[in-house]
């Protein structure tokens, strides 16, 4: 698999799920956390640090074969957690765990250090606790990932890079189909679907579990 040295997928997932639409959260908080979590796992799968075994109940396991630990703190955090588990856990449990781990803040903090986001802390006059919010430094940065994958869907000229193909699948899975396909030419959905079908089996399983987790959220209302 190709290397993914920077955690770009997880940044893109955060911007698409939470900031592409005039800085308002595009999807429900839990759905955003699920999407960001799936993107982080996908990055580590692409960089060869972890493996998803669809034939073994989609369990997430560490890979030790000649790969240096992830250079970024986010990837390292998750890789260490995967490594620390006494036995490999299924992807749905990892997605559930990442959804309750405040992954949005962890990722946004990471993006602050790379100069992509601003961190603002406001102390409430009435409550002792302060409120932290994150905003992209530039509206163009916030909209760039969705614009990029929409460009693929509009031109349909060549095959999308693997991370972008996964990002398209992820954007659809979190319920942003309308934003994704708005004003795209006829055949864009089929083009995207063909890419989703040709994703490697671990990423297909990851995408399937993400879509299932979002649907389960809609059924139970556990936001």
């Amino acid at each position, binding site marked *: 698999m190709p290397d993914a040295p920077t955690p770009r997928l997880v940044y893109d997932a955060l911007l698409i799920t939470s900031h592409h639409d005039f800085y308002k959260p595009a999807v429900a908080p839990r759905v955003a956390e699920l999407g960001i979590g799936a993107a982080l796992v996908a990055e580590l799968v692409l960089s060869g640090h972890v493996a998803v075994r669809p034939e073994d109940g989609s369990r997430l396991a560490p890979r030790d074969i000649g790969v240096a630990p992830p250079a970024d703190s986010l990837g390292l955090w998750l890789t260490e957690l995967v490594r620390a588990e006494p036995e490999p856990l299924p992807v749905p449990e990892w997605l559930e765990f990442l959804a309750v781990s405040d992954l949005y803040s962890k990722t946004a903090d990471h993006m602050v250090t790379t100069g992509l986001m601003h961190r603002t802390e406001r102390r409430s006059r009435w409550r002792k606790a302060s409120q932290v919010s994150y905003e992209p430094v530039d509206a163009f940065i916030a909209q760039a990932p969705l614009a990029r994958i929409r460009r693929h869907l509009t031109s349909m000229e060549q095959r999308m890079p693997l991370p972008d193909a996964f990002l398209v699948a992820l954007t659809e899975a979190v319920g942003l189909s309308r934003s994704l396909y708005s004003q795209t030419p006829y055949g864009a959905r089929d083009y995207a679907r063909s890419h989703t079908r040709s994703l490697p089996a671990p990423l297909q399983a990851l995408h399937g579990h993400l879509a299932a987790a*979002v*649907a*389960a959220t809609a*059924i139970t209302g556990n*936001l």
Partner: protein
Amino acid sequence: MSTPSAPPSAVRSTLAHDKLGTFSLLHFSLTAATPLTVIAGGVVVMFAVAGQIGIPLGYIVIAACLWLFSVGYTTMSRHITNAGAMYAFIARGLGRIPGVAAAWVAATSYCAMQACLYGLLGVTAEGVMDRIGLTVPWWAAALVAWLLIGLLGTRAVDINAKVLAVLLMVEIAVILLFSASNFMNAADGLSLAPLSPGSFGGEAAGAVLALAVVGFIGFESPTVYGEEARDRRRTVARATIATVGILAFIYITASWSIITAVGEDDVVAAASADPSGLMFALAGDQLGGAWVTIGEVLLLTSVTAAALSFHNTTARYLFALGREQVVTARLGRTSVRACAPVAASLTQTAVGGIVIALWAVLGLDPLTHLFFYLGTAAGIGLLALITACAVAVAVYFWRDQRGESTWHTRVAPVLACVALAGVLYLSVIHFHTLLGVEKGSLLPRLVPILFAALALLGAGWAAYLKRARPEVYAGIGYGAKATLVQSTGGVEASPEVARGR
């Protein structure tokens, strides 16, 4: 020497903090049932329709049947995905073709049950408005409620649950107050006759049992949260059985208290004279006139809550079927910001609106022709669904006990099948009593025929999917996880899927 234990999983320890306990699941299932609607809108009508005082005994019989059913049902829910929908149990137990047939009957029944409540709601609102000097037609009040329910239905389920929880607490408090007052103002002292076997039987027995089942709908909902339960083996079973027990206690107490307050010789005549207002009239006589208004206003909120609850259940069914692509995939869409099953919810809202408009334009009676006819017909459909689900549970465990006890997999499921089949048989043959028409007339025969036709159409559609769209067929019964089964070509499917039934 002690054996070294496996190191704990940090991920599972973190997730355990967020798991739902028995009380959380009980909250979800009890809010799906709305006891004041059942008692004020159903129990008094049962006295009038059945012409006998054995209603508390009818509730005991149904509670026992549903308790037996719950034993196998909650046990099977541990072994399957999409455990919130009964058609999924049928798909796993009896096969996907009966599963789709059941899904069509279930969606229609829940949809009809929700729509029928607009009739009771309109009439109750009309009465409340009349009391304060306003004249509002039933359909106008029903349309206001329809709009509110339509809006709440497109919001997240947890918002609805909070609204329903507050209403439920007030309802239960008022029912217990009214019941205590009835017992303290007994006409002829406390009588045990309503609980004796002789008080219950004849042509009306099936009608009473069918109406009693409707009051418990919602008891099945803890299985929806099976994957989020603290202990999947015990929490769901405890919550389901506790729901049946609590609802049975409320219904038995309230119906017995009405008999005690009016007198066993007079209750049938009193209920026939004032089927929608007897309970509140008793409270007004005993506690003061203000309680009549309080009761009617609470009945209004209770029926609204019941309609909202059935709206959510129907939307969940349609959403799961949309996700499986058994019906149009558009129904599987969620709203972006709230992650609610928005397309399914709007579909149910549209059906409700059409029903209200149709009944208003045709000038049909909202209480008899909408609430009662449509509601009892839906009750028969739901009873057939529960019975088919009981058979599916028995068949599922007959093939493989999956390490569960004989009581949970053989004895209780078989007893539940026999008991529920008996109740269904009595309900169908006594359906004319339920509708208040002559034996042998067209209407009571039409409803079972309609459900049978729906089931046949569903089965035919499933057979078509098996031949023309096998990938969709593979995902039947998996609900939220259908796309996973479809995309992985059944990698994560159960042995039933692997066998291609």
